[in-house]
């Protein structure tokens, strides 16, 4: 049975450790986004949701204790189950693909799928970095850091500092234009954050609303970017300026069977036509999409020319440029509204967030086929092809 994406919403993406969600938990954030999503489909009884599938790249600490279950119970009621899944930066898209797969297998009719991540509250490598001794002795690069992989692809695919900085500038410019044009306004759930703090010895309560992506730097220039020091390698090309930002955010979609769509008389926006993952050398993890894209295209029986728009997660400018080069993507259709370098990359949330962004932009441009693709730490890639429905 066909599975459809009925709708999707996201929070604004906030800068980790200094932005609007720096003290706000990602489970609370997920609950708010899902509640809002449900409010837009008033005919859907929350108890009909078969499962809540939550992508999360560091499910420990504040995101531990089965965040999937915590969120499902709080957002939809204790009767609704929840699961946490993890494929690092692909988690959000993977969640949608699992929901689609379950519906197609006949295991259920209604799924909430997406991801949530706080990078403010959980360290990038988790609280305890503890790789397997055997793994490390077999291949030291299984656990390689993302920055090192960005340098590795830059060297292998001959991406220069100038190219990377120019790409980064473009990302900021496109993102600024999109925000100024109000393009993300309808997909973002404004979140009210309540604060209690001590000022001059007194307990003060206040609140602020987060409703706009925070990462864009409107004053970025090539000269400014050129002044930044390499962040990961002596004499390297990857800087804080041409890398994705660490962020906090949540994004969820409603995935439903054809039967249920008809029953509730809903108008679905898209279907996931194909979704594939593949593995690459961990040291060159950034190139992951190059193996996932052909697989997905083959599944769908399509060629790259059929794809009208691509959201390619910008883990790093060197990585995105390597993928564009190696997979022969048309740069003109990639990241039309900027990418993670400007808008942020809340790991487990990103795949779902890009899906929502893509579908909305496809609607505005009246396009039929679009793709979300991302590289994944540890040496993987994911690509999902969406068909927009009228």
């Amino acid at each position, binding site marked *: 049975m066909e599975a459809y994406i009925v709708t999707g919403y996201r929070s604004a993406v906030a800068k980790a450790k200094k932005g609007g969600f720096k003290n706000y938990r990602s489970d609370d954030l997920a609950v708010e986004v899902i509640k809002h999503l449900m409010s837009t489909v008033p005919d859907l009884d929350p108890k009909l949701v078969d499962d809540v599938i939550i992508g999360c790249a560091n499910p420990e600490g504040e995101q531990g204790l089965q965040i999937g279950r915590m969120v499902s119970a709080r957002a939809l009621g204790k009767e609704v189950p929840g699961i946490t899944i993890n494929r690092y930066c692909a988690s959000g898209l993977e969640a949608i693909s699992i929901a689609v797969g379950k519906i197609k297998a006949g295991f259920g009719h209604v799924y909430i799928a997406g991801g949530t991540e706080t990078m403010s509250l959980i360290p990038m490598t988790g*609280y*305890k*970095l*503890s*790789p*397997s*001794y055997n*793994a*490390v002795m077999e291949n*030291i*690069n299984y*656990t*390689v*850091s993302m*920055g*090192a992989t960005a*340098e*590795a692809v830059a060297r292998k695919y001959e991406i220069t500092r100038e190219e990377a900085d120019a790409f980064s500038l473009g990302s900021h410019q496109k993102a600024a234009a999109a925000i100024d044009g109000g393009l993300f306004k309808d997909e973002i759930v404004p979140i009210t954050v309540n604060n209690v703090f001590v000022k001059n010895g007194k307990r003060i309560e206040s609140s602020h609303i987060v409703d706009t992506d925070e990462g864009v730097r409107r004053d970025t220039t090539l000269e400014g970017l050129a002044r930044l020091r390499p962040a*990961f*390698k*002596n*004499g*390297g090309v990857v800087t804080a300026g041409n890398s994705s930002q660490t962020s906090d955010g949540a994004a969820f979609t409603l995935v439903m069977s054809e039967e249920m769509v008809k029953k509730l008389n809903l108008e679905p926006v898209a279907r996931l036509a194909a979704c594939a993952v593949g593995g690459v050398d961990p040291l060159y993890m950034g190139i992951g999409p190059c193996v996932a894209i052909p697989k997905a295209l083959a599944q769908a029986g399509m060629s790259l020319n059929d794809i009208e728009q691509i959201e390619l997660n910008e883990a790093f400018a060197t990585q995105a440029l390597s993928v564009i080069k190696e997979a022969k993507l048309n740069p003109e259709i990639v990241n039309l509204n900027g990418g993670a370098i400007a808008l942020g990359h809340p790991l487990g949330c990103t795949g779902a967030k890009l899906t929502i962004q893509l579908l909305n932009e496809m609607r505005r441009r009246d396009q039929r086929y679009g793709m979300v693709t991302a590289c994944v730490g540890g040496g993987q890639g994911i690509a999902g092809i969406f068909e927009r429905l009228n």
Partner: protein
Amino acid sequence: MTYRLQKAAVLGSGVMGSGIACHLANIGMEVLMLDIIPFDINDKDKNNPVVRNSIVNGALKNALKSKPAALYEKGFANKIRTGNFEDDFEKIAEADWIIEVVVERLDIKQQIFEKVEKYRKPGSLVTSNTSSIPIRMLVEGRSDDFKKHFCGTHFFNPPRYMRLLEVIPHEASDPGVIDFFMEFGDEVLGKQTVLCKDTPAFIANRIGVMSGVKMIELTEKYDMRIEEVDSITGPLIARPNTATYKLQDLVGIDTSDKVNQFVVETVDGDEYIDTLKGKAAPDFMKFLIDNKFFGRKSGKGFYERTRKKDDNGKTIINALNLKTLEYEPSIKPRLAAVGTARKIEVFSKRLSHLVDGGERENKFLKEYFAALFAYAANRVPEISDEIYPVDDAMRSGYMWEYGPFEYWDLLGIDKGIEIAESCGESIPDWVKALPGKGINTFYKLEDGKKKYYDLASESYKSVPSLEGFIILDAIRSKAPIVKNSECTVHDIGDGVMCVEFTSKSNAIGEGIGQGIQQAISKAEEEGWNGVVIGNNAKNFTVGANLMNVGMLAMKKEFDTLNQMVDGFQQLNMYIKTSKVPVVMATQGYVFGGGCEMSMHANSGIYAAESYIGLVEVGVGLLPGGGGTKEMAVRASDKFFEGDVKMPTLIENFRTIATGTVSTSAYEAFGHGYLLKEKDFVSANTPRNIAQAKEKVLEMADHFVAPTPRHDIEVLGRAGMAALYAAINEFRLGEYMSDYDVEIARKIAYVLCGGDLTSNQQVSEQYLLDIEREGFLSLLGNQKTQERIQYLLMNNKPLRN
């Protein structure tokens, strides 16, 4: 009366103001620093506190960024609050000490003090950091209480590092206040306090002005290039590298010119300064000042750092040609007298040789010292009733190794008089009479004390500023308990011994090992209270004697090396577990083996200016004297039930693997070299041995020596995997070479207790054994031997 100072207000936030604020925070005071609001504040920002405080906050920010660091530890910045003169002045009511550091203008300072009087709490101390304005003028119009609690406290730049603090009373100052600052400045601020009279420029700058102007005069007279003058007035005569003209560039030619002018204008009846009145400055001084070539801050002065590089990749430095007034590439002077003098290691002999020779550089120096001796002698009792404050001031304020009277002593009073008179200088009668009385030095060491010739009583008296110090030189005349080529063990009284290193750079070799061994076992057997390991050198130690280790490695004498390393490990364990307390007293470099020794000692008094580090990786080694083991012990001691442990392990690994050196003793706690429960910091470097002795006595009564441990938790393979992954990042980032990786993996192996398949408790000796094994295997590697050889030959590390 004892004042308890807890809160300070610093008025003015310039380089000196913020430097002083930082140093007061260093010693634990809460500091309020205020400055003016910007003159050009516009209507829009009139009420914006960020703009109103922008001057003071900008200044503090600069101070916190300055290098060398103004704070002992970054976190101390939390002790400093800021504000402005208009909105926050009343907050000075909380301050126990208010120090004024605003611009050097009498009217402005007086306005400030008028305001201070309005808000200060009665009994609070008020001082000025003025370098030139007479203290008595600053208190005109002030109340009796204000005057009583007021004096000058003159710091030198940078306040954390420059040891001089001039304390200047005025007539109505309460003697109790002055005594307090002399003591507080010394014991708490860690300064050399010098009591000054309220005479222009006080002591250090008064002598400094004469010295600087004389250098310029002699440069012209002997037709010298500035590089030549700098080559004979720096380390050659026991003065800093900056010598004469580099110092001018560093201080700022405009700044020193202002001080010179001030002294010339305000001083009367000074035989040298009087000759300068109405005298035109040399053309080159006018050239520099008119063009605003003030030195480093303006990009050029006497020297100019160009952007060009020579064939060896070194930046080309230009020097001003004093005749043509053009900058030309600086030369490396090859003066005949310098070459021979440099080979004379005993400084008194070198000085004597320098002033005797017939070259123009000899004559230059002869005339300079003649003038210096005469000037200093004629200033007593004008600027100081005694001689020692003059020497103290020049040593601690100008970083000379000897003050004027101490230089004089090196030649002998008689020879100094002869030199001075042959140059036409006039020496006061009281000095000329001394040789006739059989007195040929201004100072002498007697009964473990340094004594000075007192002009008033015509007799030797103990230097009071040294009470509470243990100066090893002063007790050298007593028969040592142990003496060998590398160390001397002194009896420093009250049943305490002090092991003093005397080897080159205080490098640790077998002699030091034997000395410590003998001292401790003697202390154990004969019932001494304990042992201090400390010395008065600039640097405590550079670490183990690398030359010896390197030679043995190249000769492949690994059995000998194994014994040697085992011996050093056991020595450190003996320091830790002997029945008497062993307490360190350090300053300057505490590197490698010295750091390992400190980690094992039962306690330590570390001068704040101790630069501590396990630096072995630089020569391709791991700390092999128990340092790596001790880092494993310290990680284990930090673990707690439910702890993920890995971050602690990684932190300790990083410290060793990157050869981290602390930039102050306080920072060393953060690196894990020092431990809060046993180690202590002293702001006053020369007091550390005396304080370490006190610590021994305090511990001795109920001392229970620790025993070797068997409960050290190591993480085995799990830890190694995490550390290997971390090392891989350094390699990929090209911050480490392949050989660095090998060294780092060895360190990881030892820290984790080897490739154990689970967490386990192991003994100190087990860790020492694998540490020694790792050390020796690295030492057997050609690349390590190359690193050692390279460092010994070039005094900088090799990356291979």
